[in-house]
């Protein structure tokens, strides 16, 4: 009835060749077929943001996209942020510094949304940060420490890009 399709995915620079049903969402393929379980599944219908990943540098909900639709794209997940030696990405480091997480369930989605947000706008206003994070839900922190983490990460990223241009 619905035959499996072969899909080639590039995730964090690594190539994967998977056979999936057309109905398989990108998040399920990442977790089950690529064994990348860092991306979480919360609501499975687009409301919570836990499944946020970057597809060709744009943040999307990977539960609202089918795996076959990611054919030929370049995907970035939470596993692809830290350096090979374990050095955290500035957004991850900021979460640790500001205690931006408690249970950690929402964290991969928040971190990927923030990476996309700061990539587009290195100095967002508090209003822009709140709007940008409105699509991610957290049931633990009360959000304030996450907002603080965004400020810290933005400052770090600005400092690094300044250094790079010197």
């Amino acid at each position, binding site marked *: 009835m619905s035959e499996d399709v072969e899909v080639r995915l590039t995730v964090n620079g690594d190539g994967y060749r998977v056979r999936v049903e057309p109905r398989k*969402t990108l998040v399920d393929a990442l977790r089950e077929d690529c064994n990348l379980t860092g991306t979480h599944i919360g609501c499975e*219908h687009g409301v919570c943001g836990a499944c946020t990943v970057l597809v060709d540098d744009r943040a999307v909900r990977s539960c609202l996209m089918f795996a076959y*639709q990611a054919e030929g794209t370049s995907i970035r997940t939470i596993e692809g942020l830290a350096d090979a030696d374990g050095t955290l990405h500035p957004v991850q480091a900021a979460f640790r510094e500001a205690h931006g997480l408690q249970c950690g369930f929402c964290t991969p989605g928040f971190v990927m949304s923030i990476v996309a947000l700061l990539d587009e706008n290195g100095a967002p206003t508090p209003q822009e940060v709140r709007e940008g994070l409105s699509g991610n839900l957290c049931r633990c922190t009360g959000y304030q420490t996450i907002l603080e983490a965004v400020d810290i990460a933005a400052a770090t990223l600005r400092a690094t890009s300044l250094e790079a241009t010197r």
Partner: protein
Amino acid sequence: MKCAPFRVELPSTVDEVVAALVEHGEDAKILAGGQSLIPMLAMRLARFDVLIDVHHVDGLASIQLDQNTIRIGSRVRQSEIERSDVIKRHLPVLAEATALIGHFQIRNRGTIGGSLVHADPAAEYPAVALALGATFEVTGPAGTRVIPAADFFLGYWTTALTDDEVLVAIHFPIPEGKRVGMTVKEVARRHGDFALAGAVASIGLDPSGAIVETAIALFSAADQPLRLTEMEAALTGHSPDSLDIPALSAAAAAGLAPGDDLHGSADFRRHLFRHLIADVAAEAITRAQEATNV
């Protein structure tokens, strides 16, 4: 929360989309950005044997500026509209409305055509299309026809599109060389949530400063976007200074029968509309007075 199994077709032309719709009838559905359809499939509110994915169809993803219109392909993503220089310059109200849709992650996939065909009564685009007098370019087995926005929206999630038709593009007239001001405003519990109440206004002035054209459309006010024809008639032909806009807005809002649910009572929504209508009318007039494209 998993979709039921389906097969995918990936047509590359509009004619192939129509052929697939004709072949599969009610068993098939078009998949654009998926930001409304996939949740419905996941919750099993709907299931289809075949999804016709339009991502590889030629010619649906461009924004073209003609003399007096902007033609937007149905598959143009909401995030592209938000970023488009042509739209920011010639039709900024459409970019403003886009920023009110959901969250940026949703707009990165969701398309303008998907939103219009989905026709949620709380959605921004249908009301903007209605206020601006957009027209819908639709192709089916009998060829292409053009549907004015006023005839397109028929009720909750219902449009004039037949099962074998595909929305190809939307044409927005642009007010080049005229003193027209446009704006959109809404109230939502939280940024990104569907609006409890929303309003769009487009108001044109003649060289003397009198109002010569008025369009005010509401969303989340009824089962489809709504034009305020009586209030529009009361504004047109008058100088803005001679009008009591708050009183006209209160009268317009009193005549509404918006939804009454746990998100907001009908009375509360009427209260919001009363202020939103006055705000968009006043701001559209100010913008028309300040218009520099004349």
